[in-house]
């Protein structure tokens, strides 16, 4: 049965490949034949899972590079999706018919709700968790329930947990994993830390005793140094803790050595810290980390810059208030005159509930230097209404034709910022390339 399932998965992947298709269908077929298909596989070397709301793709990609550079033969789902069928496809198509996985390291980005399907079924050696924010609440239920689905599979987990020490909702996973060992990473107080947070905030109550948590400082949103005045639950000591954060030059220091983070924003600094913590746990030399940072490719639509014919355009994905607020901060730091195009869709992958735009500080864009904001996408009018009630006094334009919307933002001596939700990202990217011709 198991061999049949493996064979069917591999065969369907092969056939689909002939037709230039791939995706998660082979895994779906394999799971239909044998729902425990993963349990029958034989692995060698470290198996690393990366999950969390924001940053899991870049973190998983950097970890994949780190393992490769340091000599492992790595399989990852970099090109596949992060749900169970996609993960099964990735692993099984890289296995022999007898179920031996053809690599000595496995790095998987896993959707938060799918951890419960993956972790108990393969011998995971490290689980890296970035953060938990409200993200597509309509799909992912309330965050509390999402975290509890992960907690439910931790009691027997005896590998390493690599956790963000500054997120109380991530640290709490350690409470449910008595057999696991924990490596924490974090960021020290720095120029950008603040005593208050105005951003949508999840980490309000102590997960142990429900008392309100007290923060010494916030780095962003609910990420920071916290403690519970009642039971003593607090930010644990981090094994890797970044210092001297410089968001302009994107640099930080660790153990006295300066590094340049390939990505912008405080949230990306945490991804860098996670990669270093993982290197530390596997005794991988930091020179390889340095190499990962230097060679990290800029993912499409994550502060992706286009410069053609003296015209500058910057594209960013927004998918939840926290990620979006970080994007706002990066745009706010640019004093140049700018036009902004916001493309808001509400398809399933975007999240069908768009109320999060009211939890996002679009007010950060409402500056003298913002000349106009053009709204497009399926819910363009809702976006415009948000800006109107936010008090934007500049020009708000609705343009449902995406190409026209992007093009209308491109003016001489003015920087164009495009912000798009998930399903609007690639169409917006194409509109930019078309518009710049």
């Amino acid at each position: 049965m198991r061999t049949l399932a493996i064979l069917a998965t591999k065969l369907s992947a092969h056939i689909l490949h002939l037709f230039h298709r791939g995706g998660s269908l082979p895994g779906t077929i394999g799971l239909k034949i044998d729902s425990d298909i993963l349990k029958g596989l034989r692995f060698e070397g470290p198996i690393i899972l990366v999950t969390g709301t924001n940053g899991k793709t870049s973190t998983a990609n950097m970890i994949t590079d780190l393992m490769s550079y340091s000599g492992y033969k790595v399989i990852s789902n970099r090109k596949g999706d992060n749900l169970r069928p996609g993960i099964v496809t990735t692993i099984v198509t890289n296995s022999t018919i007898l179920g031996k996985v053809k690599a000595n390291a496995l790095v998987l980005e896993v959707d938060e709700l799918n951890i419960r399907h993956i972790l108990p079924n393969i011998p995971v050696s490290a689980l890296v968790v970035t953060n938990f924010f409200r993200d597509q609440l309509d799909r992912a239920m309330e965050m509390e329930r999402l975290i509890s689905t992960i907690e439910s599979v931790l009691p027997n987990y005896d590998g390493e947990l690599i956790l963000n020490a500054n997120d109380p909702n991530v640290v709490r996973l350690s409470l449910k994993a008595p057999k696991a060992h924990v490596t924490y990473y974090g960021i020290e107080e720095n120029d950008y830390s603040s005593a208050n947070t105005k951003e949508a905030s999840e980490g309000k109550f102590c997960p142990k005793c429900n008392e309100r948590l007290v923060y010494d400082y916030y780095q962003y949103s609910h990420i920071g140094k916290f403690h519970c005045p009642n039971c003593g639950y607090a930010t644990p000591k981090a094994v890797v803790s970044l210092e001297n954060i410089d968001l302009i030059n994107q640099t930080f220091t660790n153990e006295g050595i300066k590094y340049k983070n390939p990505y912008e924003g405080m949230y990306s600094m945490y991804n860098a810290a996670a990669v270093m913590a993982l290197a530390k746990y596997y005794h991988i030399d930091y020179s390889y980390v340095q190499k990962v940072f230097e060679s990290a490719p800029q993912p499409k639509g994550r502060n992706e810059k286009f410069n053609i014919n003296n015209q500058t355009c910057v594209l960013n994905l927004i998918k939840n208030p926290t990620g979006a607020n970080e994007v706002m901060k990066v745009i706010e730091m640019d004093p140049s005159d700018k036009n902004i195009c916001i493309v808001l869709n509400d398809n399933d992958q975007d999240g069908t509930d768009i109320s999060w735009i009211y939890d996002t500080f679009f007010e950060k864009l409402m500056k003298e230097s913002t000349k106009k904001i053009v709204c497009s996408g399926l819910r363009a009018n809702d976006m415009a209404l948000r800006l109107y009630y936010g008090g934007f006094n500049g020009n708000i334009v609705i343009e449902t034709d995406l190409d026209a919307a992007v093009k209308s933002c491109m003016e001489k001596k003015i920087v164009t910022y495009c912000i798009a939700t998930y399903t609007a990202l690639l169409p917006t990217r194409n509109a930019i390339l078309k518009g710049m011709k």
Partner: protein
Amino acid sequence: MKHSLRVCWLYHDIMDLYGDKGNMMVLKKRCEDRDIDFVLDTCGIGEKKNLCDYNLIFLGGGDDKTQFSLIPDLLSRKENIKQAMDENTFILLICGGYQLFGQYYTASDNQKIDGLKFYDYYTDTGADRTRCVGNIIIEADLDGIKTQIVGFENHGGQTKNVSKPLGKVLSGYGNTFESGYEGFYDGKILGTYLHGPLLPKNPVVADFVITKALQKDDPEFKFEDLKPLENPFDEAARDVLFKRLNVEKAR
């Protein structure tokens, strides 16, 4: 006389799950554009506030854990809330806030908590953790003002025994999967599962809430006394949902 809207947003710092602050932004702008003073005050757990001082109380939604954590504080304010209601302070309740004014609330893990018990309605949890999720349009009659209200609902709670629903469901779920009715309105409180947030795309409801609140200080004040306001976006945003849900828009 110069009117003022004095809002107390209860548990603003923890019950803010679905962009509820958008409701406050709308009330603020729609008051200030009409030269009505707008004062927003907040009240957290343990804070001393006399709720009778306000003409509008607002309470939004939160996750189960948050909702449980504020119950002792909320129940300790029961007499004060009752007094404010008797003195015509209007109350706007979204999602969790709406549930907590009834008899009880059952969370998705079947834990049951007492509500304020001002009304007979009560909230059970959806079978097998199912939730009512999606865009919704209802038809409401607000003291004679007929209006269609659009929003987004996302609730596991099934609110039953609702004697005076806010409106009839034209598309979506409402108080339960099958009831066909949504929310609660009795002239004193307006409770609903609709967020999105509620007020930006429903200017009639926003103005109605303002009217009800101002009537505390000025019983003669009427909805028609509010200067009409227009913006180019709200009708268009509503149209998108009417079209998508295939609901005919009332004229």
